[in-house]
Structure formats: C-alpha cells, structure tokens
C-alpha cells in the first residue's frame, strides 16, 4: 500500500514519515473545522433572523482584521513549534468552554462563537500549510503537496459527512467535544511530523513571511501596493471574490432559514450534508480538472472559470428558487474558489519578485479577504435597505461577475507583462516557488526566450522549462544542442542528462568536433555518458587533442568508476603529469580526482607544482579523494593566499574527520598565525558539533586575530546550524572574560587623557580605543552564540553608532534578554552614563592606575605592537621611571620593538 502511495505521489526515501504525518495533521484539522463550520452557522441561523447575517459578516471582518494584525506581530516573535502548541491548547480550551457556555443559551454568545469559529479556520489551516512549507523544501513540496492537500480535502469531506450523520444522534453543541478530541490528535500528528529525520523547525517563526514580518509597516505595504500594478489587480480580484462569496453564502443561509426555521439540528444536518457535497465537488475539480484547465487555458482561462460559472449559475437561480438552487450556486462558487481560483491566484503571484511576494502575500490574502467580506456584509445591509432581497440577489451577483471577468482579463495581461519584464532581467524566481508552471502562454514565452540570441536569458529560460512538470523537453533540447550559442548548447546537454534524455549523442559529437570553447566540455561529457558503447567513446575522447574534450570525457567517466579505472591508466597519467605543458599536468590532477590515486604517487607531486592552475586541480582532486596523506600539502597551500581558496575547498571536502587535526594546528602557538587564522574558515564550513567543540577550545586564544577568526567562524556556524550546541556555560565564561578585558583596557586608557601634542601618545590612545571597540565586537559575537544572532547583531549596530538614543535602546534590549549573571556585567559597561572606573572596580576589582603605572603595565604586556607603541609614548613623554622596563623590552622583544626601544632610551637619556 505504502509502495502504491510512493509511486502515485513520488515519495522518495526518507520522506514517507513526514508526508503521511503532515497529511494526517491537515486531515484532522480540516475534519474539526468542518464540524465547527456547519454547527456555528446552524446555531446562529436557528436563533436569529436572516437579516442579522450581514452584521455577523461585518463583525467577522472587523474582529478578524484586528486579530490578524496582532497575531502577525505576536507570531513574528514566536517559534512555529510554540505557536502550534499554544494555538492547539487554546483551541481545545475554547471548544470545551463554548460547549459549556452554549448550553446556557446566551444569544450574544452565538456572535462570539461564530467569530471565533471563523478565526479558528483561518489560523489553524494557515498554520498547517506553514508547517508543511517548513517540513518540505521547495522541490519536495512540488511533489508532495498533492498528498498533503489530499489529506486536507479528505478531512473536510469527512468532517462535513460526520456532522450530517452524527447530528441525528447528538446535540450540535456536543459535537464541539469531538472537535476538541480531533485537535488533540492533530497535535500528535504535528509532533510526529516534526520529529522526523531531517526536519528542523528551529528558528522558524510562526509568521509566514518570517523576518519580513518584523519589518512590516503599513506605510511600506501601501508603497508596495501603490507602485505595483500587478499587486493592485490581485487585490481587486481578492476583494470581488469575497464580496461575491458573502452574497452567495447569504442566499444559501436565507434559503436554509426559510426551509428549517428554528430547528438547529435540521440546519446543522443540511449544512453538514451540503459541505459534504461541496467538498466532494472540490475534490473532484481539484484532482481531475484544475491542472488540466491550467495547462489548457493558462492563468487567464483558469481565473475566468469562477466568475463565468457563478454568473451563469446565478442567472439560472433567478428562475429556480428554493434551497437546492441556492445550494447549487453556493457549491459552484465555493468549489471553484477552492480549486480553479486558488490555482489561478497562486500562479498570479508567481512572477512577482520573491521578496515582494513574501512581504505582501500573507497580508493581501488575509487583510483583503476580510475587507472583501466586510464590504460584502455592508453591501447586503444596503441592498436590504433598498428592498433587494434574497430573490433578487442573484442578479446583483451576476453583475458583479461581469466586472470580475474584466478584472480577470486585466490580471492575465498584467501577469504576461510582469513575466516578460522579469525574464528579461533574469529575475523570475519560479524555481523556489512552491507551485509549478504549466501555463501555456508562459511556456511559449520561455521557449521563445530559450531559442533567442541572448545566452544568459536563454539559459535562464531553459532552466525554468526544465522545472516545469509534463513539459516535452526533447524537441527544444535537440534544436538547441545543434545550433544555439555555445553556452546554451552546454546548458542543453546538462538539462538533457538530468532529464534522462540520452538521444542527443550525435549532436554532442558534432559539438565536440566544432570545438567551440564553451560547449566542448559539456558535449564530450554528454557524449561519453550516453554513448551506446561507453568504453569506445571514453577511449576516443581521452585521446582527443582538445583538453576540454578530455576533461569532459573524464567527468563523464567519473559516473562509471569501473570504466574510469580501466581507461585512465597509470601510464597515461604519468605521461600527462610529467608534461611540460601545465594544461596537461592540470588534466592529470583532474583525472586523479576521478580515477583515484591507487598505485601512483602523482598527486603528491602535483600538489607541489609551480603552476597555480595545476595546484588548483590538484587541491580539488585531494578534496575528492580525502586521503589524509595530502593534508600537510593542503595546509601549506592554505597559508599561501594564491592557493588559499582551492585549499579551503579541498579541506572542507574532507569533512568532520579532519576537525581534530585542524584543532591541533589551531591550538599550536608555534604554527604561523597566518595559517592558524585560516583554520576557523575551514571549520565553519563543516557544520558539525565537532567543529564547534574544536573552535570553542580556542575561543580564548592569546592572539586576538586568531580569537576574532574563531569567533567569526562560531557566529557563522550558529547562523547556519542553530541546532548545534555552543556550550552556553563555556561561552558565558568567555563573555565575562571579554567584559573584564574591556574594563582593563578602559583602566589603562583613562590616564592617557586627551593629549594630542605627543604623536606617539595619541597613537597609543588610538590603539587602545580600537582594541576596546574590537573587544565590544567580540563580546557581541559571543552573545550571538547564546541569544538570537539577528537581535544581538541589531543591538551591536546600535552600540557602534554611538548615538545616545541608539545605545540606550540597545542596553534596554539587552537588559530584557540577557540572563542575570551576564546582565549584571554586560549592561553596566555598555551604559552611556556609566562611570567606567567605578564599574571596573565594582565588577572586577580593577583599580585605575596613574599614567606611569598604566604605561608600565602595557610595556610588560606580551603584545608586540602595544609594547612598541607604549615605549615610543613613554620616550616622547619623557617618563624616565620607565627606563628599566624599556631596557628589558629591548632585550627580550623582537627586532622591531628593539629599534623603538633604542630610540626611546636615546630620548630619555
């Protein structure tokens, strides 16, 4: 059975757990919601006259809008896991509470209950999809959203069917307890989903737009809308969709009221039954017709389905009155909204820049959905006042649908215009979008661009087409492989291989012989991989005079290791490695990376080559083979700036197995600082706990430049791999150490005064001030290992700006965030009005020295530049009392300090 689902939905190894638990989660949430929906509507209709319904819509829109604003702000601060936990707990609590209160028959509670039920639907369903978006990456989402969506549809269908059946046996309010139980089960499914291997919600916020939510401003949103015509059209369509939704729902509710009067169970049964059929219709449309419609008629055609079908159904309803006619119109409206219209609207957002889309989509979807419903409610009040009743309403709906058709046409034009503009700028971000492109007009346009003369745009369009499911790539690739500009040819072979198209060998062979530099390598690679006789093809291309063809063939052989062993012989390698031409030696290094170094010592020799390109290829080969014998050579190259990038990449490729060796060098005082400073750069790319442990062991290194490099690496790891353990106690100790260092620097800096007459004294003061700033930077970097890095960085920027308001704001923030032991030390030393001398004494027992004592302390320090600078300052200021310390430094420090000491002693003599 699982195998069947795996095949139907293309579930890959390791994905089944999360796919099925996410489907179960949404199924249970929708199950609960579709019990709540008919029950809340029925209880309201049974108790009140139909003319109260518009006011309920207005209230839902108003309260929903206010709630959405506060929820967005709160959710931006919560983690997604916490938000789901608390939302579920609150929902279960409220359901039990409503079950109890509704039995008291308090009329106004029905308003509260209906508003709450509407919020429940919005929040829990949106959260469900947000969890799904973080459980799957964009590519997995394209394959698995079908299964997850199926869970949601089945849940909605089961919920409404269950309600229609059970209301015969239970009072409507009692069904709320069933909802509470379902929510508890849904939470269980959620925990199972996030406990799956490879799923991490750490750092994921409960607001869809993530970090953007924090920078949300009404002015920014208005600016986006005013400047983006495309967005304006989307908003108009959202508004009219929900305006019509309210009117059509009102017609159904009015018909139900006429039919069942005050019979709450009767209305619940009818509504449950109605939702059952509506969900079945939606399921059918979604599964069988929506993607066909999108493929056949594109965005424009899909967007037209809803207004045209509602318009026609409404005109029909003018002649067929009664509850079934109203239910039919409502079913057409709701099922086309959840299928065609949703697909069309998702596609409509697609060409917008990703940042703009992230920033505005959630806001537009929620705020304008509410606004549309509110306007709908007000329109109903107005129409009732004008004497337009449920019987005439279909005419109004049909008129609105006519306007909607115009808007849909406009939206399609705008969509095409935006796609064209963004494709020209290569800024069309369809790959990361969670829906696939199958709109025929877009596909045609992408094809034209792929065949066009501008290579960058053509490559871009080709990569987008390759991502489009169901698109027939071969004819396009064949024509591009034969006669496109060389970079496009290369891309065509790459795309063909990835898509499993192996029929372009003849075109590839022709391209190799044509010899166009940008295409040869990819063509030889493809021709080797897809030739009928790979051995013959590989041997043929390895003998080719064009080194690019040889390289391509080698790359192709890399995918068939046994063939590579046979064809890349030691004799062939030895001949290339010994050739005077660096291009050939480079090929030898490349081939060693493909074949392996068995039976040859050539790579060791190539890692000592004099030519940078040979060294680069040799590093890459060593990184592929991960043989520890090459480590000394790679570390030597790491210290050399010309080969550093290649050596860094190779060492990173070795992975965590060399973390210990790297740690030994990092801690070795005798190793050159230029090499030690590079080690953290390797470790930060190896995102494993061992890297963090090795770096933490050097967090207090005596060399500040090494210390700074270690901290930068730890900060990067914290951002890239927040799940790793950064040893909070250890980091806390180091923060306190840096705070002490800050106070010590202040203590020696203060006695130097503001004297600018002595240049060496001024230089010393500048040095100490700069050291103080670096200490503050390290302090904040350490704080970033314990607290949210983004927030700590923002606080650091405020402190660095040095304006009193900014510093005060940062201090206030830290006061609220830091744990007590850190707050006690960090906050006072950063406070703008703080008295540093008093604080230093109070916190660390540091006394402020006299100027001579301060300089004496510095001369005795182990920092050569600080010693040199202090000696020069002492000489310039005529501090004869320091002569013994200066003589001592002249004897014990290096040549450069010695020269400074000589000059100072001469001045003091």
């Amino acid at each position, binding site marked *: 059975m699982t195998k069947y689902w795996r095949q139907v939905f293309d579930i890959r190894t390791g994905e089944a757990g999360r796919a099925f638990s996410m489907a179960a989660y949404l199924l249970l949430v929708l199950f609960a919601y579709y019990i709540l929906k008919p029950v809340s509507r029925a209880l309201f209709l049974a108790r009140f006259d139909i003319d109260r319904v518009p006011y309920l819509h207005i209230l839902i829109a108003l309260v929903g809008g206010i709630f959405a604003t506060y929820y967005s702000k709160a959710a931006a601060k919560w983690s997604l896991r916490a938000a789901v936990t608390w939302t579920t707990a609150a929902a279960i609590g409220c359901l039990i509470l409503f079950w109890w209160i509704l039995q008291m028959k308090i009329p106004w509670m029905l308003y509260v209950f209906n508003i709450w039920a509407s919020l429940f639907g919005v929040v829990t369903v949106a959260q469900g999809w947000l969890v799904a978006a973080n459980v799957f990456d964009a590519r997995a989402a394209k394959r698995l959203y079908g299964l997850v969506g199926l869970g949601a549809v089945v849940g909605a269908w089961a919920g409404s069917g269950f309600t229609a059946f059970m209301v015969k046996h239970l009072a409507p309010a009692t069904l709320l307890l069933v909802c509470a139980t379902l929510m508890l089960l849904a939470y269980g499914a959620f925990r199972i989903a996030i406990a799956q291997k490879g799923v991490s919600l750490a750092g994921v916020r409960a607001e869809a737009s993530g970090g953007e939510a924090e920078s949300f401003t009404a002015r920014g949103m208005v600016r986006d809308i005013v400047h983006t015509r495309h967005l304006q059209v989307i908003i108009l369509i959202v508004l009219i969709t929900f305006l019509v939704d309210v009117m059509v729902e009102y017609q159904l509710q009015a018909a139900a009221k006429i039919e069942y009067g005050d019979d709450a169970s009767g209305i619940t049964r009818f509504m449950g039954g109605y939702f059952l059929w509506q969900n079945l219709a939606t399921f059918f449309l979604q599964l069988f017709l929506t993607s066909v419609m999108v493929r056949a008629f594109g965005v424009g055609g899909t967007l037209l389905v809803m207004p045209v079908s509602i318009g026609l159904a409404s005109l029909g309803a003018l002649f067929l009155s009664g509850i079934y006619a109203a239910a039919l119109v409502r079913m057409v409206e709701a099922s086309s909204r959840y299928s065609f219209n949703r697909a069309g609207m998702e596609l409509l957002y697609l060409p917008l820049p990703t940042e703009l889309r992230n920033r505005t989509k959630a806001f537009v979807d929620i705020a304008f959905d509410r606004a549309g419903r509110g306007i709908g409610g007000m329109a109903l009040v107005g129409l009732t006042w004008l004497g337009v009743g449920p019987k005439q309403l279909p005419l109004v709906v049909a008129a609105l649908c006519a306007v909607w058709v115009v808007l849909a046409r406009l939206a399609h034009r705008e969509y095409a215009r935006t796609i064209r503009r963004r494709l020209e700028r290569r800024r069309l971000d369809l790959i990361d979008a969670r829906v696939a492109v199958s709109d025929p007009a877009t596909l045609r346009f992408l094809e034209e661009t792929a065949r066009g003369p501008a290579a960058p745009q053509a490559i871009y369009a080709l990569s987008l087409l390759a991502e489009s499911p169901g698109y027939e790539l071969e004819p396009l690739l064949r024509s591009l492989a034969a006669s496109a500009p060389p970079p496009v040819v290369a891309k065509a072979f790459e795309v063909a291989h990835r898509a499993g198209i192996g029929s372009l060998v003849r075109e590839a062979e022709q391209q190799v012989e044509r010899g166009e530099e940008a295409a040869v390598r990819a063509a030889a690679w493809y021709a080797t991989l897809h030739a009928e006789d790979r051995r013959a093809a590989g041997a043929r291309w390895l003998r080719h005079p064009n080194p690019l063809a040889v390289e391509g063939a080698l790359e192709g052989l890399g995918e068939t290791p046994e063939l590579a062993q046979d064809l890349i012989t030691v004799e062939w390698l030895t001949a290339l490695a010994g050739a005077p031409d660096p291009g050939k030696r480079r090929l030898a290094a490349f081939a060693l990376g493909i074949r392996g170094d068995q039976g040859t010592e050539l790579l060791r020799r190539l890692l000592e080559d004099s030519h940078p390109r040979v060294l680069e290829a040799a590093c890459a080969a060593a990184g592929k083979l991960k043989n520890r014998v090459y480590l000394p050579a790679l570390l030597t190259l790491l210290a050399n700036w010309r080969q550093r990038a290649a050596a860094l990449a190779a060492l990173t490729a070795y992975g965590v197995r060399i973390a210990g060796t790297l740690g030994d060098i990092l801690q070795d005082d005798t190793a050159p600082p230029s090499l030690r400073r590079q080690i953290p750069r390797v470790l930060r790319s190896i995102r494993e706990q061992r890297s963090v442990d090795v770096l933490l062991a050097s967090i207090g290194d005596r060399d500040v430049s090494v210390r700074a490099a270690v901290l930068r690496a730890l900060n990067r790891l914290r951002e890239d791999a927040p799940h790793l353990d950064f040893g909070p106690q250890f980091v806390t100790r180091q923060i306190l150490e840096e705070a002490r260092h800050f106070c010590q620097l202040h203590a020696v800096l203060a006695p130097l005064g503001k004297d600018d007459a002595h240049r060496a004294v001024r230089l010393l003061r500048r040095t100490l001030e*700069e050291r103080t700033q670096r200490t503050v930077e390290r302090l904040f970097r350490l704080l970033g290992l314990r607290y949210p890095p983004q927030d700590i960085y923002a606080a650091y920027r405020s402190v660095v700006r040095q304006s009193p308001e900014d510093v005060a704001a940062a201090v206030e923030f830290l006061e609220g965030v830091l744990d007590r032991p850190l707050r006690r030390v960090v906050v006072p030393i950063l406070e703008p009005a703080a008295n540093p001398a008093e604080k230093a004494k109070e916190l660390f027992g540091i006394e402020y020295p006299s100027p001579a004592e301060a300089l004496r302390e510095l001369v005795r320090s182990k920092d050569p530049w600080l010693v*040199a600078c202090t*000696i*020069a300052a002492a000489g310039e200021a005529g501090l004869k009392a320091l002569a013994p310390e200066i003589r001592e430094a002249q004897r014990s420090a290096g040549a450069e300090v010695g020269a*400074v000491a000589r000059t100072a002693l001469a001045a003091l003599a």
Partner: protein
Amino acid sequence: MAERNLVEKVIALEAVELLRSLSPDQLARVASIAQEVHFPPGKVIFEAGKDVDALYVVLDGSVAVSRGGEVLAHAQQNEVIGAWALFDDEPMQVTATAAEDVRVLKISRSDFYELLADNIEIAAGIFSTLVKRFRKLVEG
C-alpha cells in the same frame, strides 16, 4: 640619518589619505612591509611610460611630478606618489624626480597584495576610503 622605527613609520602612514581608515594595528602591519629609501636630488623615482610596482610615501624632502618636462606639482612630506600603481599595472603617465634630498617609504605591490590577502580587514578599510573618494567625485 637613522632609519625610522616601526612606530615612526606608522605615524607617517597615519597621514596618508588612502590608509586613513586603518587602525593603528593594521597600519603597523603595513609599516612592517614598508621600506625606507633615500633618493639624492635629481634622482628619478619612477618614469613616465614605464611600469611602476610600488607606492611611495614622502617622509622628508620634496618630489617633483612632471609630464613631458613640465613640472605639474611637488609632493611634500606625508604625500603619496604612485598610489594607483598598487591597483593597476598600467605604465605611469608622469615622472617623479627627487627635487632635494628625499626619504620615502616604499611599499611594493606584491608585498602589499600578500598583506591584503592575509588581512582582509585592511583591504576592506582601503576599499572604504576609495569608495568615499569616488562618491565625493561623483557627488561633486
């Protein structure tokens, strides 16, 4: 005259506009690759049309900067000549000649690049100065 020590070199380099945003520690690293050179009056420091691979900071004396025999300017104490030679290997457009006894700090391009590669913050500081200068030119 004795050669300047490290601190004196740093004090001289502090006045160089190109290096203005560097910290004293960073300047000390630049100073460690700077070599003090003496030119007697009339000695050509670099010649128009020829490659130059170093930057010179005038410590003492005056350097005449000329094109086609015409003196365009005199570089005095703490002024830099050949700054662009650090970034560009095109031949110089002008000739620099010692107008009197001149002492300069010479920073060679290859040493400078090696220093930048190991001290990216120095490169960032120099970029920042260049960008400020460029912005000033653009914004008038």
